[in-house]
């Protein structure tokens, strides 16, 4: 077995394990970690495929940026919410297995029955411009320049979309500091509010702090998280 084969079989199996781990984990966070694991393994495979730059980018962009974005969103929607893996749609799982297997089998049989695969290696291609990265640069800023330019539209769209859907504007003028302090002074609680998660089991932003008597304090949560489902669970667990 050549070195390449050894690397392939190990990382390949790891990648499959990562992918399977993603779909069987009950918690989304675990899924995310499995995905990151699979992606790192893919990055190693890219090295053996003479794509060092791609491998680096895979780690930096995918595991570094994209998966982090996933984790951020997971924080928002409740980091420890776990799904039941019980199927609720009738026949969905059976058909999914059936179609999935049929699809996979057809795909793999198509690949295995193909014999005309060459194995040219990239020495020539890399040599043309004096290296892998130079070669990539020539393609990106040459042959694929238009696509490169057009992707900018994609990124702008994404940024704009996130702004439109997630950025909340104010329809009243922002309160000045003086107004806020006045308000606070005339309210029931002059002291600072408790932080979320204080004395509670978790410290996620949506977990209310527990008051000395063990009851959850809604006042500790940011406004948009008050009265969510999680607090009642938490209080039950702690108080009972």
């Amino acid at each position, binding site marked *: 077995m050549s070195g390449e084969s050894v690397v392939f079989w190990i990382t390949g199996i790891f990648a499959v394990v990562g992918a399977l781990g993603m779909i069987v984990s009950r918690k989304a966070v675990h899924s995310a970690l499995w995905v990151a694991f699979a992606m790192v393994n893919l990055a190693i495979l890219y090295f053996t495929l003479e794509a060092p730059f791609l491998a680096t980018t895979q780690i930096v962009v995918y595991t570094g940026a994209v998966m982090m974005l996933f984790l951020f969103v997971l924080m928002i929607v409740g980091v420890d919410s776990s799904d039941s893996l019980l199927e609720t749609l009738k026949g969905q799982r059976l058909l*999914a297995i059936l179609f999935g297997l049929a699809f996979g089998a057809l795909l793999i049989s*198509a690949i295995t029955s193909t014999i005309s695969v060459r194995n040219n290696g990239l020495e020539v291609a890399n040599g043309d411009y004096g290296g892998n990265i130079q070669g990539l640069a020539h393609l990106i800023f040459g042959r694929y320049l238009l696509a490169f330019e057009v992707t900018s539209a994609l990124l702008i769209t994404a940024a704009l979309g996130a702004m439109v859907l997630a950025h909340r504007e104010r329809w009243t003028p922002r309160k000045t500091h003086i107004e806020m302090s006045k308000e606070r002074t005339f309210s029931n609680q002059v002291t600072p509010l408790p932080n979320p998660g204080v004395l509670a089991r978790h410290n996620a932003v949506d977990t209310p702090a527990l008051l000395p008597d063990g009851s959850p304090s809604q006042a500790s949560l940011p406004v948009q998280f008050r009265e969510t489902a999680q607090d009642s669970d938490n209080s039950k667990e702690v108080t009972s």
Partner: protein
Amino acid sequence: MTAALIGLPLFGATVLLLGGRRTNAWGHLFAVAMSASAFFVGVATFVSMLGRSSEDRAVHQHLFDWIAVGSFHVPFDLQVDQLSIAFVLLITGVGTLIHIYSIGYMSHDENRRKFFAYLNLFVAAMLLLVLANNYFLLYVGWEGVGLASYLLISFWQHKPSAAVAGKKAFVVNRVGDVGLSLAVMLMFVTFGTVTFDGVAKEASKGDSTSLKLIGFALLLAACGKSAQFPLQSWLLDAMEGPTPVSALIHAATMVTAGVYLIVRAHAIFDLSETARTAVVVIGAITLLLGAFIGTAKDDIKKGLAGSTMSQIGYMILAAGLGPVGYVFAIFHLLTHGMFKAGLFLGAGSVMHGVNDDVNMRHYGALRTAMKITYVTFGLGFLAIIGIPPFAGFWSKDEIIHAAFGQNIFIGLATLIGAGVTAFYMTRMMAMTFFGEARWEKGVHPHESPLVMTAPMMILAVGSVFGGMALKFLGNIDSWLEPVVGHANPANDVSNTILIPVTLAVVLAGAGYAWVTYGQRPVPVVAPAEVSLLTRAARNDAYGDAINEAVFMRPGLHLTRALVWFDSKGIDGFIAGLAGFIAALSARGRKIQNGYTRSYALTMLGGAALIAFVLFLVRL
């Protein structure tokens, strides 16, 4: 010139529809003027045609190239030949009369302007249908008359039955339209052209299967539009429309479009024996079915509708006989157009006089109250049952003669049909105009205004002289021969025997009806309920009982069975098909269950399916 024929009524419809309420005051007169001027243009065309020799009579007018994609070329061309002009005169002539009649008939309707717009639209579409020079353009006219008919059937939309009837007509007609569009496409594939001339020229090159298929597709189309078995069910329901509409569209013109189509496509049928046989069989079935339906109806308009079906059955049958019959199909079509329009207008006039009641059991003894209607209706009656020398005699006799030349059973069918026709028409006559008055309370029958009776009188003249005029003055067989070809029937049964036999059958039918309905009182309610039956029996105890047992009951059962078969069997099939699709749809939409994952699953399955089909090809 030819384009003006279509343009005038189309202009009328456009002005009336776009003008809206502003045209309420004069819209109907404008529509009449448009229709009448189209008639005059038609007459002028006809006269100029008379001046030319028979080969040069066909005139083509190129308007513009409508569609030209690759080898597919459809000109927007019109043609007037001897066949078209006959239709043009019928459509514009009868059409104008009915326009005039409608002024009176619809005078109280607040939507009268719209009604006239639709009538104009119909005339334009029908003219396009008969003036097109290719099947493609014919299809346009075909759809156009369908649309106009649909609009007019459901004109009184406040009646749910009218709306339903309109929908039914639409759906059944679509089945026929599938036939026509298939036929046009098959023609294009087989002959590479869709013009009448082109198809006629290339027809001999087609193989027998294609010819057969085209023939069947055309027949399906004809069945839909001409209410032939098994697509006849919509015509009876179409009587929900205003009576002038029934007269113009569902008796004189549109429903005969199927006959026109078959005669026009004679090149196809000439070459396909099988297709011709199918046409004859359909015609024979319909003519008997229609006649029997006619005997069972108490609704005067539905009775006439059954009669229309039956008479068109005659025409279809004649058209299926091939060159011996084409001319007579058209001949009967023209005479029928006159007398049936007259009969319908008469029926409308009667309804007008008795507060829109259509039940003949509520009529009786109207001959004194409505003299003009009585006389004109009577002349139409004589024409339809085929008493010489009235119009129907000349054309129907020719068809019976030709039918016997083809096949004895076909001949017998036409003969029986003639007898039954005489029976139900006499029954209608007797129940309406003779006997004692059975008017509902508060009904005071009165004659219609002149604007309505004048068209009836003109049509009555046609019913009397139309047949003779066409046969002796117009020489219809030699007139049409250059277009459709003509052959004399090779006949074993000569006309000298046939005419007396036919007349005897007709008189027997009429006599029986007169004895049953003219000589004894007609129950006001259909004699199905026992109490009324006894009341009927009390009036004429013994003879009536025998009559009931021997003739009435079996006859009643037979007709009832036929009507049942009509409404449940055939109708049921069409309705069942619609229901099946609706059920399929209701079931199928459950797959769209709203779950994104389920959609993704379908896509995954689809991807597997696509891959599978692709690999299958390689095996």
